[in-house]
């Protein structure tokens, strides 16, 4: 290490790896991981959401799991709650849909209407 520039670069890189531990305030995505959800592929959904956020360089949205949301026939389901906006629950969120929701809703601010099950809190 020879300079402060290099130090800053290491800081930025490591912060990405520590990202899960930072407080995030722009929004939250909850992936339902009940038995039904997992059977329908919720784990792939979860990983797709995380991967897509990472690719897009979004670090201020938290991704957490929850138990069954009670919408078993539309699994996998996810709930997207962006700050100061009503939360939206999406159904049939497979890998491709998960990535689309991240791109259009989280990044673009446009709710993906055809996948919505419900708007507002359950």
């Amino acid at each position: 290490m020879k300079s402060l520039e290099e130090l800053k670069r290491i800081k930025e890189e490591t912060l990405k790896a520590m990202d899960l531990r930072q407080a995030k305030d722009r929004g939250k995505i909850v992936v339902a991981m009940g038995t039904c959800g997992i059977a329908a592929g919720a784990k792939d959904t979860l990983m797709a959401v995380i991967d897509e956020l990472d690719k897009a360089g979004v670090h201020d949205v938290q991704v957490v799991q929850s138990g069954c949301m009670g919408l078993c026939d539309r699994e996998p389901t996810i709930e997207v709650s962006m700050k100061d906006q009503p939360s939206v629950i999406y159904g049939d969120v497979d890998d491709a849909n998960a990535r689309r929701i991240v791109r259009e809703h989280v990044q673009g601010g446009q709710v993906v209407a055809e996948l919505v099950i419900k708007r507002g809190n359950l």
Partner: protein
Amino acid sequence: MIRNQLLICAGGACITSGEKSVKDVLVEELAKNGIQDEVQIIETGCMGACDLGPIVVVYPEGTFYQKVTPQNAGPIVSEHLVKGRVVSGLLYRQPTSETRAQTREEISFYTLQVKRVLRNCGVIDPLSIEEYIARDGYFGLGKALEIGPDAIIQTIQESGLRGRGGAGFPTGIKWKAARDASGSPKYVVCNGDEGDPGAFMDRSVLEGDPHSVIEAMVIAGFAIGAATGYVYVRAEYPLAIERLEVALTRAREYGFLGRNILGSGFDFDIEIRIGAGAFVCGEETALLRSIEGKRGMPSAKPPFPAQAGLWGKPTLINNVETYANVPPILINGAEWFRSVGTAKSPGTKVFALAGKVQNTGLVEVPMGTTLRELVFDIGGGIPGGKAFKGAQTGGPSGGIITADYLDMPIDFDSVKELGTIMGSGGLIILDEDNCMVDVAKFYLAFTVDESCGKCTPCREGTKQMYQIMERITDGKGTPNDIGKLKTLGRVIQQTSLCGLGQSAPNPVLSTIRFFPDEYRAHIEDRKCPAHACLHLLTYSVVSEKCVGCTACARQCPVQAITGQVKKAHVIDQATCIKCGSCYEVCRFDAILKE
């Protein structure tokens, strides 16, 4: 792709309570569920809430699981990580309601703290220099190299930082003295001896955030013009030594130690010196002798270490916690540092909360926090509905803060006025069952053992005081014993060579000052009001209440109790060993303890 991180507290207390086995179970469960590549386990330094350990925190939610055992750890993986269901049985139950806290942010033990020294403890992986850097590590050094020695020392002086090793000496003045001293080479030393029984903040910093101390020592070396540093750690701290060694190696690899640090042309390196664990070796002059390979005995000051320290050369010696404060001061400035704490004692202080208090562990609070906030708000109060009697501060060199001073802001100067010292931050909470004479005797026994023997007042005087204390707690005290203790104490304070002797009488003098009635009860009435001194305790049968059930007679290990069935029993005082078995077993409240 990592979706969750599990932080496991690998502080001393959590390791003792089974952290390694918990980790093994978690690793196994992750593999069993096939998610070992999606979940990362990180062992951190002490999270502070030692009585709640082992602790596992699940991110990104920050879910705080406490008292995790190998038996109940499985569901953290199979429920929380696989099914997204929080394992509510492992959450912390709020003391005042039936609700459970999800995260650290919901537990008052944590929310009332201000973490500066402990900023990284329990948050980062202490073995990872990158995580330290990510939390602004080594940026303080970068700043220091940029602004130069004079500006560094000026910043430290303006911050008002005072030594956390016990005496509260202004750090900036010490750095300036070491810089101005003529003689070379110069040395930088870190005092990690931590001899006060009950204190463990220095160990926790070394274990949980070793780079903070290394960074500060490099800054200090640059400021005073030294090329070599020593960290003196006691051999009883093997984990601290191990993590420090790893940290030193990594710092060298990254070029924070060695030649031409960050391209500045400045060379500096650090070595570890291991102490054998003598209390007196925490005293700075004794510590320096010990580093030189000589017997650790104090010498007269002046000359101070800043003038003539290691091998007679100018030496800067500071405590671990003092150093840990330095990097953030350089990054954020003196004003920031002064923004918490009191005018004369700015910043925070780490306390090791122990004794008769609900939540024990390490807590960091602004200077000027009251004892009431520490004991009741953060500590959760006294267990079993007992009454608070006092807090012992400063270990064997300190004294008692009584209930009358619960609302006094605590800082270096306010505790001194009460005849005690801040010391390293050990805070032992005492309740109505603690006998103050007995407590003082305990600490005196410690100094009698630890006196190095170089000077007579300390070597012989403390021994004489101890014998008087023993006489009093044995019920053989005489009315002029209190006067003798006071006179002896004063002489020892004034004529001992080093701080050990000078402060050894403090626990006795402090308890005489605040609890004179308790001493008198021992001497005049031959009673221990707290029922703690065995020799002054008698167990007897209240014959009106005794139904002659014989339970006590059967329980007594020395057959001191006799009596016929259904008739009142008696205890033979000469045979009784005061074990209290009869008191415990009697269901009719017929045993009197006094």
